């Protein structure tokens, strides 16, 4: 459980840093590296990658939107035919980042298993 929470936090932090220095897909590298470094079951790795970036993007988008009074998110939501809903746009934003990060974390976790095979007892 501790590893799981730690993974989420580290993924979010690393993904945030990647956003400063790299293109948007840096989040995939961040999630991949974290799950390759912190051993977890693949399903948990996926979830921690997913949640790490989901929460990061959710918080960032919400923070920006709040400071902007929703001026732009409403326009973009209407552009994407989301019925002017800023909330929906923020959720979609987060899910897209989260999906990429989740699968990257899954790949990282499987890579770790290739290099450090897991004792049979740990596999489920």
């Amino acid at each position, binding site marked *: 459980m501790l590893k799981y929470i730690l993974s989420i936090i580290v993924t979010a932090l690393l993904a945030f840093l990647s*956003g400063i220095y790299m293109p948007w897909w840096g989040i995939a590298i961040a999630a991949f590296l974290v799950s390759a470094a912190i051993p977890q079951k693949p399903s948990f790795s996926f979830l921690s990658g997913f949640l790490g970036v989901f929460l990061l993007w959710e918080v960032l988008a919400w923070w*920006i939107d709040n400071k902007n009074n929703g001026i*732009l998110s409403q326009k973009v939501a209407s552009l994407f035919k989301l019925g002017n809903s800023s909330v929906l746009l923020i959720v979609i*934003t987060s899910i897209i980042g989260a999906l*990429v990060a989740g699968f990257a974390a899954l790949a990282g976790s499987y890579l770790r298993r290739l290099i450090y095979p897991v004792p049979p007892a740990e596999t489920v």
Partner: protein
Amino acid sequence: MIFKAETRSMKFVPFLISSAITILLIIAFNTRWGPVPPLGEFLSPQHGFWQNAEPIDKDFGQDLQLTGLKEPAEIYLDDRLVPHIFASNEDDAFYLQGYLHAKFRLWQMEFQTYAAAGRVSELIGPAGLNYDREKRRLGMGYAAEKAVAEIEKDPVSKAEADAYTAGVNAYISNIKESELPIEYKLLGYKPELWTNLKTALFLKFMSLDLAGYETDFEYTNLRSRLGYLTFNKMFPITQDSMDPVIPVDTFSRFPGITLKTPRGYDSSYLQNMDTTSVHSSKPDKDNGSNNWAISGIKTKSGSPILCNDPHLGLNLPSLWYEMQISCPSFNAYGATFPGAPGVIIGFNDSCAFGFTNAMRDVRDYYEISYKDDSRKEYWYNGQWVPTDFRFEHILLKDTAEYIDTVAYTVFGPVMYDKSFSGNKKTNNKYYAVRWKAHDPSNELMIFNGLDHAKNYSDYQQSIKWLHTPGQNVVFASKNGDIAITAQGEFPAKWKRQGDFVMPGTDSTYQWQGMIPQSENPFMYNPERGFVSSANQYPVNPLTYPYYLGGDYHNYRALTINHFLNQTNEIGIEDMMKLQLDTYNPFAGMAKPVLMKNIDTADMSPDESKYYDLLKDWDLHYDADGKGSSIFNIIWDSLKSVVWHDELESVGMPGFYPANSTLLEGILRDSAYEFLDDINTPEKETLRHDVNLAFKKAVLTCKNLEREGRLTWSKLRDTRVEHLAKIDAFSRHDIENGGGEYAINAVKKDHGPSWRMIVQLTKNTEAYGIYPGGQSGNPGSQYYDNFVDNWAAGKYYPLWMMAKDEETDKRVKAIIRVTKQ
């Protein structure tokens, strides 16, 4: 061993599958799908559109280091985000203007030059090809290249343009990808560096908007099918109710150019029977404006007042960007064009200046006779003359390029030929366009001159630089002078020259010269105490020694001049009221004719309902009234009843005569000849046509009312659209009064684009507003924050800031700029 290897490779499978999914997701979200931008990039809060969501409490203040700056300078941003530049030399002033235009309006300024140059296909693909070819074939790039050469020939304009360009590029070179305007992110491209050519392209874009209107092909068809005599009655060259800009003859009785009408032009030109299938797109014919200046003898303060409201397409980001530019050699405030240096409409410490469109026809067509389809040689003055070819490379988004080979003749580029008709119809003729905007000129100098002007003689010197688009330039100064000049370099034409396509086989139909600038009509401190213009005839077309051509609007001027003639002790509030006036003088003349002829006996309940609404209408375009709508619907219906038979007989591109022609026809003569429907044996009368039109109109009114669209602001449906027509970035359903014939000429997507009032008292008192906002960013609260106040008829005080007012509470942020 084999078994072991199998388990090992089996273990690769989940890794490979999850890696593959990750990579596919990244590729999918990094790819543009039709109009959908790459979602990963676009939605990433650290890269995409969220970065354009500007915090409400954003502090615009900063310390900025720029390489091209000579001396330290300050930019004060006030509470409306209007910048006040204080530089210690002119180069720095224009450099910072360029920097600010780019900082707040980068996407717009570049997009406008793409549109001007015919490069829209680069952004939207083959859908833009027809538009681009039209711009290329009109020679927009050719004209801009000539203008740059002219700008760079003069050291003053060269320094100004170079400094401006360097300032724009100082911003572009340092921009981070996440800071790119949202339109770049949506459409998927990046800004290029700015050049002086782009500035020239922008100026040519304005020339096209203001001096690109022509009706040559439609007129040619109408003349050929109806005969010149009938055509001349339907499209007369003068009007009964007119009040020219210059009401008295101030021009020389002995013109500098003696015109020779081509021999035999009556039969080979006026009576010519040729028709054409060309379809030329046109700028809005109501690109017009109001301006006036009132002498101190008629004002409350005793000082002159100057007013201007240019009527142009209403867009977001707005065409205008407000600013003050201050340096030791000048101090000017007003509306600027993102894309060009200088203050365009505004005032300085000594005087104020404004513009309305001159409406003259400076774009004509000649039919070229080519030896063969290769277009290599054409017949001119008795011999075969070689063509110059200009290859226009149009890049299509993501695909190949399209090369349009445009032939240039002695007249100009062959705009329409077998490969391009402007529409889908085939065209087998060759039409070369002679456009005044092709001639070398340096319009930057007029704005430079006016920004520096101290008095009337500076004004006179400055406006000489304005060749195209021709404008009525109004002027007032603190020493009490007022003036107006119908300025431009206009071709000297004989009567009806260039109204129809002209023969291009020799020089007899070419323009024979330009009207000497000294013969441009002007008025200086007239006895009546004011000067004004509103796109009406510049002078009486029957007495001016040259043919005016063009398309004029005479009604707004009647209301303006009536008020200014009648009123003394004029104050700023009176000017605001006048600019916002919604009286419809056209309806004032037309409504009585309708009322007199509509039969009130045996009316259906609907008919009497709309009749009563019309009867009670007070002739103002009120936002929530229905009278204006009903009048317009009846009038449109009458127009179609009267003209449809004539137009049907033409059967080619053409259009209805002006509203004024029909109105004056029926006012003069109730048996106006065109009232008769030529398709029926009976002789229709005015009463018949009006009643037929009324009955048809009642049905239209009823349907509109059922849909809730009969009130005037609903029917007119004014919107301020985003330049790339992105609905979410546009403002719709603007509710205010005004309409085509009112001084407050608000139409669907067109109207007073900058209202300005300047009272030249010792301390200048000025007011202004435009329907937009200072920021071009749809994610900024300053994107459209003026729109509602504009619609409500409010004004902002225009603050000519002094250097020692740095601590004034209107200063919201300070940008201190130093040399890097």
